[in-house]
Each structure stands twice: as structure tokens, then as C-alpha cells.
């Protein structure tokens, strides 16, 4: 079975600085997908970035990028130039192809002005 582990319950970063959120996962499949979701106080789930396991290149979306280490089963999220609007709960998630998404426990990110 898939598992997703986020070892940082909370993190803080100064506005305009860079922060990295950690995530490790475990799967026996070779074809899978990894995601980072943002959950603001409204509690809506917003997809931040996705990575297909077969792609070696790390995904990037504007200020958000990932460091995907397939052998180590690590999938960290880097947020550059942090903004106040980035404050939220961030969930790492994994999905085997054609299967359900499994979420980590989340990391609450605080942005310090």
C-alpha cells in the first residue's frame, strides 16, 4: 500500500525568502504521480504542482518547484519569494496510475511579514 509522510507539522518563513517542505512516500509501483496541494483557511484543496514518476525533470510552476528523488522516494516542495498569500496547509499526495490519491498529514506554513 502507498504511504505518504510529511515530517514537518509546521514551518515558518520570512516573506520573500525561500522555504522547502519535505515529503517522502512509499510505493511498490513504478508508474505513479505525486502532487502538492495547498489548503488555505477556506479549506478548499488547490493543486499546486504535479510530477509524473517517469519524468526525470523536476516540475516547476512559477515560484513553486519540486525536488523529485525517485530512488530515495523523496518529493520536496520549494517555494521561492514567499508571499503572505502562501500561508496555508500544504499536503503532499501520491497516486498509483488509475488509483486513488493518498495524502500526507500536511505541513502548516506560516509566512512572517
Amino acid at each position, binding site marked *: 500500500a502507498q504511504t505518504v509522510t510529511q515530517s514537518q507539522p509546521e514551518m515558518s518563513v520570512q516573506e520573500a525568502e525561500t522555504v522547502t517542505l519535505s515529503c517522502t512516500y512509499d510505493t511498490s509501483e513504478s508508474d505513479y504521480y505525486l502532487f502538492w496541494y495547498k489548503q488555505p483557511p477556506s*479549506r478548499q*484543496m488547490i493543486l499546486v504542482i*504535479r510530477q509524473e514518476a517517469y519524468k526525470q525533470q523536476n516540475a516547476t510552476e512559477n515560484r513553486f518547484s519540486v525536488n523529485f528523488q525517485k530512488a530515495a522516494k523523496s518529493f520536496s516542495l520549494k517555494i521561492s519569494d514567499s508571499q503572505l498569500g502562501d500561508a496555508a496547509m500544504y499536503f503532499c499526495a501520491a497516486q498509483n496510475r488509475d488509483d486513488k490519491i*493518498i495524502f500526507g*498529514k*500536511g505541513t502548516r506554513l506560516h509566512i512572517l511579514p
Partner: protein
Amino acid sequence: EPEVTQTPSHQVTQMGQEVILRCVPISNHLYFYWYRQILGQKVEFLVSFYNNEISEKSEIFDDQFSVERPDGSNFTLKIRSTKLEDSAMYFCASRDRRNTEAFFGQGTRLTVV
């Protein structure tokens, strides 16, 4: 941009009452999911639905829960006799065959009193 729509956004119900949470997935999507998030906890998989039947369900999804796609557009989650511990945010998600990314609705906050 197409989106998954959930209604109501917030429902308060008496313990023991039946509730129906409604979702309108993105049209032409084929796979449907319900997830639950108890306040402050991780997002948990409840059930997946494909081709008019349940494809997988979790231990949480006991006999009190049922899902239905009554008219080809709505996807509902019914809780027959609500308990206090059913209070949570419930998310519906859908995806199509080609693109594995699941799109989440904005959630329904269920409060059982």
C-alpha cells in the same frame, strides 16, 4: 474553466439524521471520489466510483455510507444515521480517463450536533 461543484457548502444536522452531500463532477469525467477531512487531520479516502459502481472503499466507508450517481451528472454521498464523529469536511473529486489529475470540489463542511 470546468470545475467540480459541491452543495451545500455547509450543512448542520442533528445526530441520527440522514444527510445527502451533492457533487457535480466535471462533465466527461469517468472516475469519482469522496474524501473526508476531520478538522486538523489528514485527508482520508472514503470511496471511488467508476462505471456506475464502487471500485474501492476504505474501512471508514461502512454500512452507514452509500454513494449514487442518480442522473448521470450528480454524484451523491449519503450518510444514513449521522454520528458526532461524522463532523468533517467532505471533498468530492473527479478525473477523466486520459489525465490522471483529480479535480477537487470546494468541499462541504458537515457539522453533526
